[in-house]
């Protein structure tokens, strides 16, 4: 027995908040990949702005804004292949969009429609998870199914928050992941807050990456507002997972720039100065600077992108509102769908009674 056992948690930053590049660590994405990532981040930010407006106008319900977390959400998702799985928590619209979830579905979900959770046929993406950290176990199970079925070259990416690391399900998941050596990458969005609870009251651990030590698996801390660092860290972890190297915990150090949800008022519990300080670390301008330096981006392109994205959002809002109206009218009984493969007799009778009543026949 050694007198002392030692563990280390590395920290990765490629592009610091002043835009200085650590060239040795640059993952060197191709132009196409880099622009795809930037597109995803800008699109996510614009969607977030629009959701906020829609919510204030009463056209959707409460939702969880993502502004500030675009790098840590988009970059991991960008690294996924169609064979990989994506398992998201409730604050991962950027990753969902990057993955190809249609925008109008995200609007529909936030407007309280079951149909908002529909995932395109063929997309290995789960509906978002509301029960904090419960999804970590689903990811492990999917990874273990791959192991047991001999499915190679695929991995599972699962997101959760800093608050989520307090839950038993999270620890159970990383411990199981270690025992089973599943191809799962856990990305912890350490955005410093769980509603009104700051990280210091969530755990005494200095980093969230070190939670991995409990499971005997690798953990790494990453600047979550650094798109290049997130890109690199998740690519390496996913590659390792896909080639049989087992699971990884990645802590993305980022910040929730807005309220927890639109039902929340952060002024009650956090200092505006803190938010201001984090503005300087905004992932979008930082990554834009990198693109510009490489000659891949300029003001004209920026303008074109923003107007393209806004146009897309306008169209999706129209699509969503038409669909919402149609669903309410034509399909009030959606909750009776998909309860079981074959509905039991009592449920059929209940559905008929419900429809008679809703149609004013009862």
């Amino acid at each position, binding site marked *: 027995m050694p007198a002392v056992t030692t563990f280390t948690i590395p920290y990765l930053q490629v592009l610091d908040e002043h835009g200085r590049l650590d060239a040795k660590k640059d993952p060197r994405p191709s132009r196409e990949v880099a622009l795809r990532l930037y597109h995803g981040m800008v699109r996510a930010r614009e969607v977030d702005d629009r959701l906020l407006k829609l919510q204030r106008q009463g056209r959707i*319900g*409460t939702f969880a804004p993502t502004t500030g977390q675009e790098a840590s959400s988009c970059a991991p998702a960008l690294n996924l292949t169609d064979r990989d799985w994506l398992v998201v928590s409730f604050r991962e619209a950027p990753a969902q969009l990057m993955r190809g979830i249609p925008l109008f579905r995200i609007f529909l979900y936030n407007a*309280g429609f*079951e149909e908002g959770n529909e995932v395109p046929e063929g997309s290995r993406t789960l509906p978002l998870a*509301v029960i904090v950290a419960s999804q970590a176990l689903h990811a492990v199970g999917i990874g273990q199914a791959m192991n047991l079925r001999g499915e190679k070259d695929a991995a599972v990416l699962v997101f959760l928050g800093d608050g989520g690391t*307090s839950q038993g399900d999270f620890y159970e998941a990383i411990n199981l992941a270690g025992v089973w050596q599943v191809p799962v990458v856990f990305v912890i969005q350490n955005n410093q807050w769980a*509603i009104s609870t700051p990280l210091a009251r969530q755990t005494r651990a200095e980093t969230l990456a070190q939670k991995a030590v409990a499971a005997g698996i690798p953990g790494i801390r990453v600047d979550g507002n650094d798109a290049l660092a997130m890109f690199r860290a998740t690519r390496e972890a996913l590659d390792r997972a896909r080639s049989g190297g087992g699971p990884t915990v990645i802590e993305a150090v980022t910040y929730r720039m807005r309220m927890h949800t639109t039902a929340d008022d952060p002024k009650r519990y956090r200092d505006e100065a803190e938010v201001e300080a984090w503005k300087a670390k905004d992932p979008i301008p930082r990554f834009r600077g990198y693109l510009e330096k490489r000659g891949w981006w300029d003001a004209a392109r920026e303008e074109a992108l923003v107007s393209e994205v806004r146009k897309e959002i306008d169209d999706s809002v129209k699509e969503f509102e038409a669909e919402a109206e149609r669903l309410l009218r034509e399909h009030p009984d*959606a909750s*009776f769908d998909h309860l079981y493969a074959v509905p039991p007799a009592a449920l059929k009778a*209940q559905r008929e009674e419900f429809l008679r009543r809703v149609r004013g026949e009862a």
Partner: protein
Amino acid sequence: MAKRNMVEALNLALRQEMERDPSVIVLGQDVGINGGVFRVTDGLHARFGGDRVLDTPLVESGILGSAMGMAIGGLKPVAEIQFDGFTFNAMAQLEGNVSRYRSRSRGRWTVPLVLRFPYGGGVRALEHHSEAREALYALPGVKVVIPSGPRNARSLLVAAIRDPDPVVFLEPKRSYRAFKEEVPDEEEVGVIGQAQVVRPGTDVTVVSWGAMMRPVLEAVENLAGEASVEVVDLLTLHPMDVATIATSVRKTGRLVVVQEGYRAFGPSSEVVAAVLDEVFWDLEAPIQRVTGYDVVTPYFARESLYLPDSARVQQAIRKTLNP
């Protein structure tokens, strides 16, 4: 006297009990500076400090399991779980420990805690934020209390805090701010285990609890002249005050039970079975139950179509009057 909504009434109960008894503490997610997501604990942190109003990490089993330890260690913890849908993370502690500890320790260690949380639909909340699954908490050794308005919410929460046994206290979130009642500043202590006849009548008994009391009373209003309805507010779901219901049904001969949650294995089944044990020969018509449907709690866009309303209650009352 002052007009208060249910949130204010609950807040009053907490504040006064904390003043009265230094061993009462409050814990849960965001209950501190933030005052709880529904503001039930608003101002308590400022008044009593972080040692009596504890923001916990995000961990429901941890909240209930540690609250049990605190209760054994001499405190009276009032633990909040943020929404009904997250109470199930704490189910093992409730079933295996909290509910049994008086019994397991032969009375040596008791668990005088309150586990309170908002439940039920009607506020256009997210998935897992609108469940009404009250029956799942009705375990031997636990009391399950459900107020229906500001005044009884306050007096029953006071009673729950003073109760020597663990109380699961379900707050109908739809009624949090829906209406106000006179809630006196002076102490009022409810009686756990007692249902209340809130409206006397002779033709039919309607039993309900929590947020459903409003559509029930609305239905009874609407039927004024047509039928004399006796309304029983259950208030304590478990152990159930079957005697009060039975007395009423013996008089009216007819029973309607109104429940928000899905129908199968819900509390209305228990009301029917328990009352039937007592009043079989007195019933003059089939018992009617108005309940949710046996589906996953609907998302908020369509929610209102699914929640029992006064129209359905009226229909059920008419049906039992003209079977």
